[in-house]
Every structure is written in C-alpha cells, then in structure tokens.
C-alpha cells in the first residue's frame, strides 16, 4: 500500500472518530470530563481579571507561515483568539493581536471582527488592534515588546509558531507584572518557554485549548479522537520496536 493511501486511510479514520465522538458529546449534552490543565484555568481567570480591571489582553500569534506546516499552531491560536475576543469584547480596552505573517494578520483581523459581530458589538471593533509587527522571528519579537510595555497589557497569550525568541517576549511580559501563557509547536520554543513563561502549554496542550475554552463540541470530540489515535501510534511504535528486537 502506498504511503499516500495509508495517510488517506488515517485521515478517514480521524474524521470518523471525530464524527463518532461528536455524536457521543451531543448525547452527553456537553458534559466535558476532561483532565485539568491548570494553565488554562489560570488563563480563564486572567481574562476575567483583565476585563474587570480595564487592562488589555495581548494575543501573540507568532511568525507562522500560513501556507506551510507551521500554519496549524496559528490555527489553534486563532481559535483561542476567537474565544478570548468574545469574552473581552465587553471590556473598555479591546485586546491587541500581533502576528508575523501577512495572511495570519488578515485572519486575525477578520477573526476579531467576526467575534465582535457575533457578540453584537461590531461597531466597537477597531482593525488596528490586529497588527503585523515583523516578519522575521527577531523583528517580530522587537515589534511586540513595545506593545507590552506601552499599552497597559496585563496578560500575554503566546499561541502559534515561535522559536527561542519567545523568551524575550515572555520576559518582557513578566517584567510588566503580567500573566503569561505560551504554547508552540517548535521543540526549541517549548524548551525555552518551560523556563520563561509562567504557564507553558507543552506538546498537544496548545491544540487542546479550544476544547477547554468551550469552542464547541467538535473541539472536544477532536481532542478525544487525538487521544485514541495517540494510543494507536504508541502501540504501533512499541510493536515496531518489538518486531525489530526479535528480528
């Protein structure tokens, strides 16, 4: 069997699992029963605090190239942006979103506009709150730092593709006495944010955030499908190892 057909079969299985778990979640009427991720509980608290204080939330989406494989963490970041923007749309100080890619910048603008429209406050949306700040990793970091310093940011959420430069952003947010939550697909980025961010999201936790922020039944269903497939992959790796060990 060709690798293309194998991958197609894997995707079909993934879709079937998502569909099955969606039905299961609908029957259970949204009772979540997901393991606790303390970082996300603190994020929800920080969003509420920022709305009450009238301080600003900063969502950093990183430098993902939307036409490449780095697009997936940016999609997870956009999903988080949608939920955060809905909650913060009632705040006096709207959230600010930074990105390092043209397409991602447009998606963050339309995402913010859509969230405000859905909340019935479309007239409050300001397109300049979603900004392209730099298109290389370090120019992105350099463009983000003044925003954290100068715009009364009380919580910085870094969700997207970041390399080690994420440490500069996390440290600046920490020095501004702000809450920092960070998740990325890059391994060097994850190693750095483990030390630099107050609440690091490790591995697939970045992609799970949507389910925890109540983005819908399909997010919870896809999380359960990922769990099932992870066990299948682990089983396949172990089986491969055993077969190789015994010839």
């Amino acid at each position, binding site marked *: 069997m060709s690798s293309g057909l194998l991958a197609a079969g894997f995707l079909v299985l993934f879709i079937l699992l998502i569909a099955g778990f969606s039905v299961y979640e609908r029957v259970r009427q949204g009772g979540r029963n997901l393991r606790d991720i303390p970082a996300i509980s603190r994020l929800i608290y920080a969003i509420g605090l920022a709305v009450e204080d009238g301080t600003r939330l900063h969502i950093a989406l990183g430098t993902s*190239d939307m036409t490449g494989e780095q697009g997936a963490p940016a999609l997870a970041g956009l999903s988080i942006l949608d939920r955060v923007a809905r909650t913060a749309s009632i705040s006096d100080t709207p959230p600010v979103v930074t990105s390092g890619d043209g397409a991602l910048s*447009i998606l963050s603008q339309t995402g913010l506009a859509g969230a405000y429209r859905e909340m019935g406050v479309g007239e409050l949306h300001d397109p300049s709150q979603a900004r392209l700040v730099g298109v290389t990793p370090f120019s992105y970091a350099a463009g983000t730092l003044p925003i954290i310093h100068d715009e009364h940011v009380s919580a910085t959420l870094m969700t997207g593709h970041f390399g080690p430069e994420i440490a500069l952003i996390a440290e600046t947010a920490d020095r501004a006495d702000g809450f920092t939550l960070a998740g990325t697909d890059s391994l060097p980025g994850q190693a750095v944010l483990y030390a630099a961010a107050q609440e690091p999201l490790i591995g697939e936790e970045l992609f799970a955030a949507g389910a925890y922020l109540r983005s819908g039944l399909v997010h919870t269903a896809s999380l359960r499908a990922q769990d099932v497939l992870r066990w299948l*992959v682990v089983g396949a790796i172990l089986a491969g190892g055993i077969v190789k060990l015994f010839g």
Partner: protein
Amino acid sequence: MKSNTPIVSTAVAMLSGLVVLLLLLLPTNLDALYTALIRWAAALAAVALLVGLVNLVNVHIEKTSGGGADAANSGALLAAFGLTFLAAFILGPNGSAGGVEPANWLFQYVQVPVETSLMALLAVSLVYAAARLLRRVPNLFSIVFIGTALLVLLGASTLALGGPGLLVDVIAGVRDWITQVPAAAGARGLLVGVALGSVAAGLRILIGTDRPFGG
C-alpha cells in the same frame, strides 16, 4: 433570521482544502491543478503581506501623530521602512547604485546586526529565566530541567574542564546519552502530540466547523 455563518468563504475553504489534500494523497494525473492551486496560495500570501505592511504603516502613522516617545520610535520605523521600500522598489532587490546594492546593504549592515544583538540578548534572558524558574517553581522538575541543561552545556564545552581526561569523557558520555535517549524519546512524544493536534486543526477547517476567516 439571518445566519452569521459565511457560507461562500466556508465552501471555498472546504473545497480547495479537500481538492489539494486528495491530489496530494491519491495517485492522479492532475499534477497541473495541484501546482496551480499551490501557486495561487503563494500569490495570495504575497498580497496578504502587502496588506499587512499597509496595516503596519497605518498603525505607526497614528502613533506618530500621538506625540511622545512612541512618536519618535514610530517615526524612525516609518523613515526606515520608506527608505528600504524605495531602494528596493526603484533599483530592485539586487539593483546597485554607485557600486552599492542598497537593499542588500541595508539587510547586511542594519537588519542582520540588529537581529544578532537580539540573539545575544536572548542568551542573557535565558540564563535569567532559568534562575527565575527555580524561584518561581521550586520543584523536582525544575531542578532536573536546569541540571540537564547544565550537564549538556558542560559536555559540549570541554575547554572549561582543561582538555581531554577521564572527567571530560564521562561528562561527554552523559551528554550523548541524554541527547540520544531521554531527550530524543521525549521529543518524539511531543512531536506525535503536536502532529495529531495539527491534523485535527486542519480537519476541523475541512469539515467546516472552524472558520478562522471570520464568523
């Protein structure tokens, strides 16, 4: 009641994603269509970058009119942007004037040194972050994290231990074992989780439940 779901953009996203995926995975004779779709995406990404740059300029023009320290910084950014844009627009990315290639010169002697300085600053930030980690989360995982980082750094810098010797060999051996066994195993575990999450994020757009393009 009027629906807020953007039907046309959702349909276009689902259809184009599905077609590209099928052409990528299944054996067909439609390579030209696949290449055309990918080229359209690349062209659209370039246009999106231009739109993003207009947004960047707009934000900084607003800041310049606001006065204060922000205005000076934004003014410097606008001046540098205008200079670079004109140099590349008039002469082309590799064009030269008086034996100098302005666009390349600006990149080599402004952009690269500034980014290298930030990288140097990053080294200091990381050391500070490591020290702060022990203060913020004083538990076994933090100690293992810092201890492992120090061991790997020590194993990579034999000069600090005075050249070859038994201690150097032992530390280098420990470093190799850490990077090849537990670090590689952990990295694979993380990558499996990230890959499954990435596929799930893509599939949610393909089935139309996630619409990052608004609505």
